[in-house]
């Protein structure tokens, strides 16, 4: 769906084999190891295949989540992107350049300017205070103190740690330490953020709060984010697209909705089993075209007739340029008529609920529960469709049936 967008990171046929001579293991004897199982390869050669033939693109401004359990190779994969771990075979392109062909100097430049990384255990330097931790990346670039401290202060304010500059990491709570970790990465103003299970070590409440803050931050910054997690709910919440890894291979790549609604295999199915479908299903995939749309300039009387003819008790109203103006109900119309007005606009209820097509069905449930009228689906003032209580119930029943079957 995003094929037209610019590609920031492209990974092609990536392999990582741990052991003294991974390259040889992949090539020898006609490359039998490439199709053998992990266990077979380990038994025969003592080498471990950590990443098996993975390819994907990460688009500019996208949150790309890599999800898998421990041992699935997800942490190895993110490290391969900036060669903290050397891939055995394949291509990693960042902005069109193959990173695997870089020499040491180029790699250092890449890490200094294009990427910023956040670690599961924070990876903060205990001998440096918060300020010097955040300014570290700028310091190794050789940027002078005044200017790097100014940047650090800026970023610290952004992650809500203003006033903590002089503290040392061990004086901060886990959540605050990870804020410092995020600030340290942001201080470089990198195009790409690599986040290796950044919230896994935090307790659930703080984790949720940090996820929300990351979403807020991303709205302002529009970074390209590669986010590693073992938590499916986190992946669904944050990811524009999700890659699911198992035993070093990628088993599915898709949007959260695709992953939950159409799991590629039993493994993914098992994963998403307990996920409420309503949470990932978007309004856009269940809405229907609006049944009845009135012109804003229509006479009150003809509107009432139209509604009666269609056996409807409510209808949407559009401006002459097509933009959404609100909803009228039969009750409202007759009341306005009774009060002697002849203009439709007098009856328009512009306080009626409308939703965006990206709203989750989960969030829709309380809205449809509160009204018996349809709800308008509106995107940038354009009326796209409508949803009502029966549609929502149907969609929930379907997904439930699909799961049971």
């Amino acid at each position, binding site marked *: 769906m995003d094929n037209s967008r610019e590609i920031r990171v492209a990974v092609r046929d990536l392999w990582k084999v741990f052991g003294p001579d991974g390259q040889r293991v992949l090539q020898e004897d006609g490359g039998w190891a490439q199709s053998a199982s992990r266990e077979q390869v380990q038994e025969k050669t003592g080498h471990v295949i950590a990443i098996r033939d993975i390819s994907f693109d990460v688009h500019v401004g996208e949150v790309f989540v890599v999800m898998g359990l421990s041992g699935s190779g997800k942490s190895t994969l993110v490290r391969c992107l*900036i060669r*903290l771990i050397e891939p055995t075979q394949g291509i990693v392109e960042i902005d069109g350049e193959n990173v695997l062909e870089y020499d040491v100097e180029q790699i*250092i*430049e*890449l*890490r*200094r*300017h294009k*990427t*910023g*990384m956040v*670690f599961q*255990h924070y*990876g*903060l*330097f*205990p*001998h440096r205070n918060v300020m010097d931790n955040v300014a*570290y*990346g700028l*310091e*190794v*670039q050789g940027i002078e103190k005044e200017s790097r401290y100014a940047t650090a202060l800026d970023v610290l304010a952004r992650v809500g740690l203003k006033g903590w500059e002089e503290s*040392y990491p061990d004086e901060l709570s886990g959540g605050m330490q990870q804020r410092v970790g995020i600030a*340290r990465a942001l201080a*470089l103003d990198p195009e790409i953020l*690599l986040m290796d299970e950044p919230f896994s070590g935090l307790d659930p409440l703080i984790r949720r709060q940090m996820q929300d803050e990351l979403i807020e931050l991303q709205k302002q910054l529009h970074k390209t984010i590669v986010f590693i997690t073992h938590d499916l709910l986190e992946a669904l919440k944050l990811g524009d697209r999700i890659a699911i890894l198992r035993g070093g291979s990628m088993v599915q790549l898709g949007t959260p909705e695709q992953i939950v609604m159409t799991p590629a295999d039993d493994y993914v199915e098992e994963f998403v089993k307990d996920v409420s479908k309503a949470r990932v299903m978007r309004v856009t995939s269940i809405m229907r075209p609006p049944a009845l749309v009135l012109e804003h300039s229509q006479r009150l009387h003809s509107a009432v007739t139209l509604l009666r003819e269609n056996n409807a008790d409510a209808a949407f109203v559009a401006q002459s340029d097509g933009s959404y103006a609100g909803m009228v109900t039969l009750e409202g119309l007759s009341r306005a008529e009774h009060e002697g007005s002849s203009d439709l606009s007098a009856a328009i209820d512009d306080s009626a609920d409308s939703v965006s097509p990206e709203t989750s069905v989960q969030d829709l449930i309380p809205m449809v529960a509160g009204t018996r009228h349809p709800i308008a689906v509106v995107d940038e003032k354009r009326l796209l469709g409508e949803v009502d209580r029966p549609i929502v119930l149907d969609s929930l029943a379907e997904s439930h049936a699909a799961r049971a079957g």
Partner: protein
Amino acid sequence: MIDFPSFDFQLDKLIDHFVKWLTADWRFHFFRGVSATILWPLVRLEKFLQWLPVTVIILAVALLAWWSVRHKRTRKELFIVLAEAAAIGLGLTLIGLAQEQSASNGTWEWAGRSLLAAAVAIAGGFWAVGGRRPGLPELAMAGFMFIGVVGLWDAAMTTLAVVGVATTIAIMVAIPTGIVMAKSDRLQAGIRPILDLLQTMPSFVYLVPALMLFGLGKVPAIMATVMYAVAPGIRLTNLGIRLVDKELIEAAHAFGTAPRQMLFKVELPLALPTIMAGINQVIMASLAMVVIASMVGAAGLGIEVLHGIARLKVGQGFNGGLSITLLAIIIDRVTRGLQPGRESAGEPA
């Protein structure tokens, strides 16, 4: 019973020849040159320490001790310590002047002794009234007072100079060696047995070749001391760098840290507590060699102990031995406290 058969394997002769070869021709002059190079700062340091007024040294020791106990580094503490040091310093000066000017100055001598008593009274008073227990500064001043009172002040300064120079050389060798060792497993495998050898070989064994290479006096003593003391410095530098959290190294890499920056911005600062412990060990090992080193003619406290043994003067030996112990305890506590870092570090047990 069959005795162990004899073999014509003469490692001892071989080593003899090697040392003889080392001391012949131009090599002799080379080692004498090294000797002179080491002697130059040593003599000056010794002269300087002996020239410094006793008051200054007592004051410096007291301040260092105050500074090294982090949780007691307060203004009030400083005031008490300064008062004590001032009383001692002034008291010693008065007594000294009285003795120089002949016996007629009984009043000065009496005043001086009262001041010394006053120093004790200050410490005791704060203990009794304020509940402030005397600490490292008091121990340090008392230790140096003891050394002076038993007449070993100049000997102690000589020992300090020898230990100072030996420690400096050992640290200058140990830290770079420890760093390269930490960077290469091969080097580590190669250097380790040498360190084992250096530390387990009875230290007397170093004296003979040192004597032959550098002649009699303080330089062979220093060389033997360095040989013995350098090992813990190398070991702990190596260990400290190797123990730096791998995740921090990875984080540093992820932010584009160049190799030099890795060493100076990440590895050395994080290894510093361990390296400081190594330096502390180097100093302790140097002090432990003081007596042995005096056998090749290094003057100082060691000579006292040696004479005590050789001439059956138990008292003299005891004075010398106790002085060395006091120096060791004071230097150990102070250097432990001087380790950089925040809070919790270096509190004397």
